[in-house]
């Protein structure tokens, strides 16, 4: 469609000025955007308040959507009930997969127990969850991988707290609003989690690759001991994540580690648990030592 006639200013001085003003204002918009962008890249926490307020306002939509998602799953399950044989098989396979993860986790916990008891004479106890929430959305069109959960400061959620699902680690809280929070998912390229192999003490860092997989980088370089299928759990280094939570399964070996698939795929996760920071004192000390480090790299 052609632009309307009043946009073709011709010799009309007033119309010319109007078009010119439009350009000036749009140009100012560009400059304003560039300034905002520079500020938020240099100091990412500047606009947290604004954003958390906005996400609190929109959270009800997400909750309705998440409930719809669960409801729709129910409907599809009812339909699928008539064609049970194939899906039954898939279900059992899924169960076996969970059991495998559980086994690896149990092995990790047993080891952890033995080590702690041996060194300190202490037993790890189960931590009380801070809040149980729904995963209600994610930045599905941005290159960053952030999720939204339906619990915030009112439920005791604070930035830095780990977010887990029944399958394993999902991410950690980045900003907490009153009734919703933003979660840095494990696959975000700014996310870094200290992990170790469930069966022994091969330690590594799990970095997000923002395409749905993780990159494991070994701390001790040398002969790469990782084999495809190895399960990695959080090591507890850095004090943020409780040790022994399943994180990823190595699928492809690289020179300095491996490419790993998430154990707890956020796409298949509905309910998540917000856990307290494992060792708040240690985290405080570490952050006190380097106060200018952004909250992104953990450990």
């Amino acid at each position, binding site marked *: *469609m*052609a*632009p*309307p006639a*009043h*946009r073709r200013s011709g010799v009309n001085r007033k119309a010319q000025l109007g078009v010119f003003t*439009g*350009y000036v*204002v*749009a*140009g*100012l*918009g*560009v400059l*304003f*955007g*560039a*300034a*905002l*962008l*520079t*500020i*938020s*890249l240099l100091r*990412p926490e*500047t*606009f947290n308040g*604004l*954003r958390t307020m906005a*996400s609190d306002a*929109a959270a009800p*939509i*997400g909750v309705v*959507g*998440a409930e*719809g998602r669960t409801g729709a799953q129910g409907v599809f399950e009812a339909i699928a009930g008539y064609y049970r044989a194939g899906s039954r098989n898939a279900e059992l396979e899924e169960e076996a997969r969970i059991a495998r993860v559980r086994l690896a986790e149990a092995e990790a916990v047993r080891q952890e127990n033995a080590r702690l008891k041996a060194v300190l004479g202490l037993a790890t106890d189960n931590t009380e969850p801070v809040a149980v929430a729904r995963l*209600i*959305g*994610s*930045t*599905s*069109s*941005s*290159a*960053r*991988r*952030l*999720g*939204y959960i339906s619990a915030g400061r009112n439920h005791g959620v604070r930035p830095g707290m780990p977010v887990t699902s029944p399958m394993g680690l999902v991410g950690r809280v980045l900003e907490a609003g009153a009734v919703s929070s933003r979660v840095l*998912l494990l*696959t975000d*390229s*700014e996310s870094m989690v200290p992990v170790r192999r469930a069966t022994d003490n091969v330690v590594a860092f799990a970095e997000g*690759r*923002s*395409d*749905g997989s993780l990159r494991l980088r070994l701390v001790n370089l040398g002969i790469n001991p990782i084999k495809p299928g190895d399960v990695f759990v959080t090591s507890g280094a850095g004090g943020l994540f409780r040790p022994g939570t399943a994180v990823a399964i190595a699928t492809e070996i690289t020179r300095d580690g491996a490419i790993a698939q*998430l154990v707890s795929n*956020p*796409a298949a996760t509905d309910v998540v648990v917000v856990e307290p920071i494992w060792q708040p004192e240690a985290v405080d000390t570490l952050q006190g030592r380097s106060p200018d480090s952004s909250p992104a790299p953990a450990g």
Partner: protein
Amino acid sequence: MERLNPQSRRDPYGSRINRRESTLLAYGLPWATILVGSLAPWLPIIAPAPVLPPLGFLLLLAWRLLRPGLLPTWAGLPLGLFDDLYSGQPMGSGVLLFSLALIIIELIEIRFPWRNFWLDWLTAAGIIVPYIVTAALISGAEPTPVQLAAIAPQILLSVILFPIIARIVAMLDRLRLMRVRRID
């Protein structure tokens, strides 16, 4: 009595007697749909990789190309700001890119005042691709080859989806001009 013109009382926009377009609907609907498009992160899709097209931006392009002059040139500022609140991009990236896109369309329009479907699609594609790439580069994450490869499906999907969005916007445009207000 036989009617001379069947369109004289009623046309696709509703009754022509005693009814007018609503100003709120006519001017508010484009803004409202773009804002709703920006709320797409609240869809119950938890994506492990960026897959969803930037719906707010696509709707903005579609409205701008369909109805020049309906959205002011400065519309990128408020719409981009709202998009930034939810998109996960750093604050200001939407403001910058939305405003730039509107200025670029303005310049293209001076060159080609009369456009057709293909030119509109080409224009949109020529803006969407740099938009997604730039947004990924300024997202605050380290730009790696993997990450750039990960946005390729999103780019493809957005470009392919644009004609459908444009068609939806055309339908909304018909809704926008419905005569719903009663004149007393």
